[in-house]
């Protein structure tokens, strides 16, 4: 052990003696590490923002439907037990909010034009706890007690050439009889959610009026659920409500395109990591070889006086290890500093729509303890792997060749 100690002293003192090179190398590796941590934090924030935007805007964390409804969107497949379910959901400590909805294809016509619409009946009092329809109103007002009010998206309003207070006629087919039902509404509010599809072809009316038109009594097609922030395993909550007649799905199943997009961020993080770690490896190999060539004669002397080849390799690996430790500290500090600077203002993606989600707030890098453990360990592993080549080189070097440098 004493021998390892003196080798360690050699390594550390040489790194100190070459302060500038040691600093530059650890800065290079540190920048790589900081970039990794930052990228991870940024992706994390992007994921959270996207999931948050998707679930908080309208979707909810999960939804209950009659089994099979989502495949056909057949208005006949409604849940008769909606009120009982809502009562259970209200009593569930894991559930923060829930709201019943009806859903039907309809035609919305103004005096000028007609638009195909997905007409949602929503509970004006429960809905704001769950979605942001109320906050998305850009003109007029959200639904109140008045039953003959309709909310239309900004694009639909343009298509129909309607303004607040204008009349529109909604035509849909009654459930069961398939007879056409028509009703007159006044445009109470115009909303802009930022997702084109919703702003163009979604309309909201009070759920009681929708139920009357559809003739489904107290039925509902969907119950959107918002979970308490403390819930770590949504699947367990869903399981409590699923029966053979009721299907409960979380957001990844409700928005598979978003889940896929988030899967892609993992892939891109992986590639970023590969590139950055590749740079780390090259930087370390280069530094180790510089240090080795500079001290070639010294290595020769150490070998000459009886240091075993494997010990020479160990010494080079120690140098790689110590360098990576210094780099971890440098990189960790850099990561904290960069993230703090970026997070002061955030990176503005405002209004950009991606995978069916619109970014509302600026993105920030989210730092987690995990990032400061996993990525430094990766860097350490990469440094040691990078050190293998110079280590083997040092071990294989013949002492007489090493000492030819000066003689």
């Amino acid at each position, binding site marked *: 052990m*004493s*021998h390892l100690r*003196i080798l360690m*002293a*050699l390594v550390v*003192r*040489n790194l100190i*003696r070459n302060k500038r090179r040691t600093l530059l190398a650890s800065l290079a590796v540190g920048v790589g590490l900081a970039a990794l941590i930052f990228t991870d934090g940024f992706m994390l924030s992007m994921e959270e923002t996207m999931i948050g935007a998707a679930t908080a805007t309208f979707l909810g964390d999960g939804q209950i439907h009659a089994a099979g409804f989502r495949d056909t969107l057949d208005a006949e497949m409604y849940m008769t037990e909606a009120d009982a379910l809502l009562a259970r959901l209200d009593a569930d400590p894991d559930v923060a909010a829930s709201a019943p909805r009806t859903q039907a294809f309809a035609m919305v016509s103004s005096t000028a034009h007609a638009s195909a619409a997905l007409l949602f009946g929503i509970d004006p009092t429960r809905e704001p706890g769950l979605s942001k329809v109320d906050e998305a109103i850009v003109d007029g007002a959200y639904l109140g007690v008045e039953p003959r009010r309709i909310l239309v998206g900004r694009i639909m309003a343009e298509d129909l050439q309607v303004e607040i207070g204008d009349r529109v006629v909604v035509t849909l087919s009654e459930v069961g009889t398939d007879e056409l039902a028509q009703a007159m509404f006044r445009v109470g509010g115009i909303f802009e959610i930022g997702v084109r599809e919703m702003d163009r072809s979604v309309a909201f009316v009070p759920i009681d009026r929708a139920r009357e038109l559809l003739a489904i009594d107290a039925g509902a097609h969907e119950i959107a659920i918002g979970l308490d922030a403390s819930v770590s395993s949504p699947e367990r909550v869903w399981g409590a409500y699923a029966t053979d007649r009721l299907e409960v799905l979380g957001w990844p199943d409700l928005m598979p395109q978003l889940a896929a997009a988030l899967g892609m961020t993992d892939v891109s993080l992986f590639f970023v990591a590969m590139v950055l770690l590749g740079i780390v490896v090259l930087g370390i190999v280069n530094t180790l070889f510089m240090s080795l060539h500079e001290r070639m*004669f*010294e290595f020769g*002397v*150490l*070998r*000459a*006086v*009886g*240091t*075993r*080849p*494997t010990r020479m390799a160990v010494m080079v690996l120690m140098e790689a290890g110590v360098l990576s430790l210094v780099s971890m500290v440098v990189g960790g500090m850099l990561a904290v500093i960069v993230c703090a600077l970026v997070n002061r203002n955030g990176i503005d993606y405002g209004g950009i729509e991606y995978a069916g989600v619109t970014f509302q707030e600026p993105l920030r890098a989210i730092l987690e303890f995990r990032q400061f453990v996993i990525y430094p360990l990766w860097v350490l592993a990469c440094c040691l792997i990078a050190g293998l080549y110079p280590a083997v080189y040092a*071990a294989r070097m*013949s*002492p*007489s060749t090493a*000492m030819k440098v*000066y*003689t």
Partner: protein
Amino acid sequence: MTQQGEDVVRAEQLTKVYRAGEVEVAAVTSLDLTIARGEFMAIAGPSGSGKTTLLNLISGLDQPTSGSAYLAGVAIEDMNGRQLADFRRDHVGFIFQSYNLIPVLTVRENVEYVMILQRVPAAERRRRVAEVLSDVGLAGMEARRPPQLSGGQQQRVAVARAMVSEPDIILADEPTANLDSTTGAELIDMMRDLNRTRGMTFIFSTHDEMIMSRAERLVLLKDGRLDKDIRRDDSTE
């Protein structure tokens, strides 16, 4: 005083051929040589005559192309890298022309390095370092770093390091080449003293006539072959 001992070095038809691309250079050719324990021997010859190569071959720093070298009875060509390292650690002391010492280690650490490899206990190491440093006239310099020493002092530390674990042989490749002639002569005289008082076997190479004249046996090389082997009886006192 030539000690009547067994041969510490025996070279038989020792040959080393370097290949530099197409060209082959015979650095040492069919050389026979025996060195007895306790000798104080110089190897001389013009530049490129094979002095360094010969020293490397008999100390296990390099492997011969053909022929054999035995050091303390062990055939060098039969050993692998690790065995050679252990062998050098236990049987050979080295003094080089310059840059002998590890600059970031203190004088003490430089001298005790070999003993650390040999797992000599710390107290014993400390005692022996103090002893050899006083032998080479550098008592109390343990804590200095090599760059804080003069060239002559550095070479003395190298001598101390080479002898501290009492090897069978100490090899010195032009130990005085980077010293002025007085300092060089003093270093050789000190080695000669250690040879007499401790019975240590020294083999050194040199260009310098004055240094050669201090040896008790002089081997002259020419083009990698043994040219002359001169023993000076008057050195026996």
